[in-house]
């Protein structure tokens, strides 16, 4: 079953076509990769799916719902979560507060509850805190949970961004360069976490990556963008041998070498 369907999506940004007529589908519980040279439009595509930038054309489907004109917070509430290239963590808050913020989509207390300090809110807070701490533990972030996020190294922030996105228990999780800023060990942790998320929890993953080893290892299907267009799609093995892909990354001579 298709979890995420992107049909003929075009995104323009001040007259430039960042994404041009791109279509792809991701099956439920699958892990797909999205690669391409810098400026290919990968992040713009994610931003369009999230609802952060408007679509010039096209459709975005979450199972059977159409999301293309929804405001971003509704898209998130529908079950699409994501991480950011630059982590977009809340630098002022502690790591724990950051991760707990991810639970907003699943809040069980109303505004009045929150304001008056009702029992329901206090109970919900306790539960959410426990959940967040568990999540932090799985990413090895327990030690820094009380630290102010702005003080921490980039790799740690990327992990916190991921934990925060998972807190929402999304159906589709889009990751923007999840291993950037990490050493080999941390990258392996993230890969293992991704497999767990997809396998055990059935979350559908769409991952932008520059680290070829990581994405070839992790993804079942890879989509390749260049200059806003999809130029190739297929299994990691197929994509690696595709001359168009090689040309995009290394130039024409390398493709025909």
């Amino acid at each position, binding site marked *: 079953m298709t979890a995420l369907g992107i049909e003929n999506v075009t995104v323009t940004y001040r007259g430039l076509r960042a994404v041009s007529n791109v279509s792809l589908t991701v099956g439920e519980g699958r892990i797909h990769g999205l690669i391409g040279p810098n400026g290919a439009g990968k*992040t713009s595509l994610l*931003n369009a799916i999230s609802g*952060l930038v408007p679509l010039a054309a096209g459709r975005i489907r979450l199972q059977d719902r159409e999301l293309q004109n929804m405001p971003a917070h509704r898209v998130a509430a529908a079950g699409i979560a994501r991480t*950011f*290239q*630059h982590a*977009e963590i809340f630098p002022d808050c502690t790591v724990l507060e950051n991760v707990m913020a991810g639970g907003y989509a699943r809040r069980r207390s109303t505004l009045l509850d929150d304001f008056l300090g009702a029992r329901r809110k206090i109970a919900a807070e306790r539960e959410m805190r426990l959940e967040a701490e568990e999540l932090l533990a799985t990413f090895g972030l327990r030690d820094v949970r009380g630290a102010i996020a702005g003080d921490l190294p980039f790799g740690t922030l990327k992990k916190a961004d991921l934990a925060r996105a998972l807190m929402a228990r999304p159906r589709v999780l889009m990751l923007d360069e999840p291993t950037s800023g990490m050493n080999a060990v941390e990258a392996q942790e993230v890969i293992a976490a991704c497999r767990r998320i997809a396998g055990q929890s059935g979350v559908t993953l769409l991952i932008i990556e520059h680290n070829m080893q990581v994405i070839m290892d992790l993804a079942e299907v890879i989509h390749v963008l260049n200059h806003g267009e999809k130029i190739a799609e297929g299994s990691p093995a197929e994509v690696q041998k595709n001359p168009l892909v090689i040309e995009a990354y290394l130039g024409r001579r390398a493709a025909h070498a």
Partner: protein
Amino acid sequence: MAYAVEIQLLIAGLSNGSIYALVALGLVLAFKGTGILNFAQGELVALGAYIALFFAVVMKLPYWQVVLLTLATAALFGAALERGLIRPLMRAPAFTIVVATLAIGLMIKNVLRLSWQESVSTIPSPFAGVLIRLGEININPQYLWVIGCTVVIMGLLVLFFRKSLIGKAMRAVAQNQEAARLMGIRVSRVFSGTFALSSALAALAGILVAPLIGIHAEMGAVILKGFVAAILGGFNSLAGCVVGGLLLGVLETLGGAYIGGTFKDTAAFGLLMLILLLRPHGLFGRAEARRV
């Protein structure tokens, strides 16, 4: 003569607007050059007026010397202010800097209030007191002097920023501090220079407006109008400040005459509200986009 009253009001409005433009210029220059929103700018206007008062009344110097010495003193004061009090605050959060400049303004105002006991004074200007008559139109030549000075200063500033090395250095620092530093520009000196220039502009406003409204410790309130003028113009460019200031001045004066007293006070915000509804970043402002 037809439209005699309108022309008189227009000139008065342009004169008021020029003062607002000068205050706005000082604010925007400091902001673009150093990133600091200087809430003491209004008090720097008052300071300029009081310094001029000292040179004119106590030292009894002729007008031209008063003007030059006041501008020089104000510039030095501005540079000293930047070096002594603003510099340590550069890394502080934005709100802290704002409140700190408010505190500085409060201190300046009180020092002025305490050192000059008379409630209202003025400086003798060669233009005040003489009335120009063109048919039925009476013009206070001080108005023309204010407008003229502002136009000339605008022109000089444009030349300064385009042609002179210091001006270009200031523009470089305003756009990208790190890059400017790497190019060998002494950023700290540029900051001091920017504040010096900004203070001199404020002082000029004080000198020009003193013969019209008198000199008193509450003069600093003009900063609100200066802010409105700057935001109207987009808080971005010299031209924006001038257009914003003149627009505000004219609208205020004409409106105050034809609609009434309360309009004069609220014209500033009414105009601003209107413009911001249509153009949320002011007349010449640019939206800041942030890529995620």
